[in-house]
């Protein structure tokens, strides 16, 4: 619904190209390999189409696109296929992005550990003070703990979302939500297009 027509067409075109490239490569693949090849090609197609659409009204391409491609590029056995789809130089960029993402992930992890330790140290003292104040102010301890529990739930779910959306570990708050938005739109288009392809190639069997 959100996705404009041009995006769908670009995506589909890219998908067909990459599937064709995958088809050339797969002589003796088992089912699982083929499935992975299809998924890889469709993901790459999605990322490329979304990057292209982000270029037309000049915005920056979404962060998940790069992260997705980088994630696929990080696996060695996909290398040949990706090279063919993305024409060499694009693949180099994906590899660079993969390395950068790896480094970023380590840094984010380090930073989070530091932050958590700091919060534990200072939070114990501060929370007592603030907690008592808030209790006396609001007159009900239950309310505060309910809010805190809600906040904890939201935090936990944001964490899960970060693990789902590619490249989401580095994002916080607002950017995470916008990335999720874009990613959901693209996932929907991907599902639709794959369904089309399935429908299209089915009657060949009989």
């Amino acid at each position: 619904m959100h996705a404009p027509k041009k995006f769908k067409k670009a995506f589909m075109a890219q998908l067909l190209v990459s599937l064709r490239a995958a088809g050339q490569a797969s002589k003796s693949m088992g089912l699982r390999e083929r499935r992975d090849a299809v998924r890889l090609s469709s993901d790459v197609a999605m990322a490329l189409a979304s990057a292209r659409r982000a270029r037309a009204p000049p915005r920056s391409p979404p962060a998940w696109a790069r992260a997705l491609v980088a994630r696929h590029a990080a696996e060695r056995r996909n290398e040949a296929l990706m090279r063919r789809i993305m024409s060499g130089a694009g693949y180099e960029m994906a590899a660079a992005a993969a390395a950068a993402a790896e480094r970023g992930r380590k840094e984010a992890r380090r930073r989070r550990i530091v932050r958590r330790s700091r919060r534990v140290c200072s939070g114990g003292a501060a929370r007592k003070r603030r907690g008592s104040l808030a209790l006396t102010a609001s007159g009900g301890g239950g309310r505060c703990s309910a809010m805190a529990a809600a906040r904890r739930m939201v935090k936990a779910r944001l964490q899960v979302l970060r693990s789902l959306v590619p490249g989401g570990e580095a994002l916080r708050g607002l950017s995470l939500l916008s990335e999720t938005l874009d990613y959901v739109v693209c996932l929907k288009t991907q599902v639709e297009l794959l369904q089309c392809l399935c429908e299209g190639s089915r009657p060949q069997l009989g």
Partner: protein
Amino acid sequence: MWASTSQAMALADVGGARGGGGGGFLAPVPGFLPHGLGHFPVDSGFIERAARASCFGSGGGFGAADQNMSNAFSCSSEALLDHQRKDGNDKGELELGRNGHERVPSSEAAGGGDCSSKGTSDSKKRRRPNEMKKGDQVQSSNLPADSANESVQSKDKGEESSPATTTGKSKGKGAKETSESQKEDYIHVRARRGQATNSHSLAERLRREKISERMKLLQDLVPGCSKVTGKAVMLDEIINYVQSLQRQVEFLSMKLATVNPRLDLNIEGLLSKDLLRFPGVPSSSLGFSPEMMHPQLQLSQPGLIQGSAAGMTNPDVFRRIIQAQLTAKDGSQMPHALTNGPFSDVAHQMAYPSSLGSQDLSMRPSQDGFQM
């Protein structure tokens, strides 16, 4: 610095006419502006708008200013919504670009949207129209403001809004902030009466509003989310939806892999079945002219094309694109989008179907979720 700006505004106000006197203002006012304001780009449009806004503001007509601006950018906000929902509307996107200097209506939308959203709370009557306008405008106008700008904006807003609030919450100031925010890329936030006016809480409130607007968008996107309210439950739904979509992609790719074991897709067969969705306004003239324009099509059945109904128009165009892409891929190096490489020929051909009928084909009913 702000006091002298207010003097300049007063001068402009006194200077006379509201709308048309922009050129006339330019001569006296820049002479009066002190050096400290050198970084404000002073041009006729700015002076004119400032004059207009300050005239509105002094008379307690902040609502009027709102209406003026809302008229100005309601169309752009609609354009953005259209882009988001339907086909791409590039003009709307351009208007709401991030750069505040050239595309003035854009930051006007951003600044005005936020000013109208935070509006005055002095009179309930004025607030209600603000609230009513708030929904669409804050959504649409805040969307293009990318999060990359966020830290800059919050920082600048922190330092700009505090002097503004200290000098008093006159509506003239508010209007001036709006007009200035048209030039700078800041989002100025008006402090409501009786609420904390620290820079921190203002920034927090702004962030929270942006987050809520994104959540609203996600709510529209994810099916079944309209009833639930509250961040936690909605996030839960979103997570479930994303997971199910990913699983569906996996399943479909497995299905595709089983269906054709060699992954040769028989593109012409696909297109001839016309299973792929296309904009559904065929016109036979358009259908045949592209055929003649591109004789190097590798299709082997011109008879089929001529004999087919006009409904085959768009698949031909699409086919041409695919063929071009495939040949380009095999022959030369295919431009890759991630590096902003030149993408002229395919982009040009992509632009072609957009020139065809823009009527939206009725989509297949979205077979959502769980058909496994």
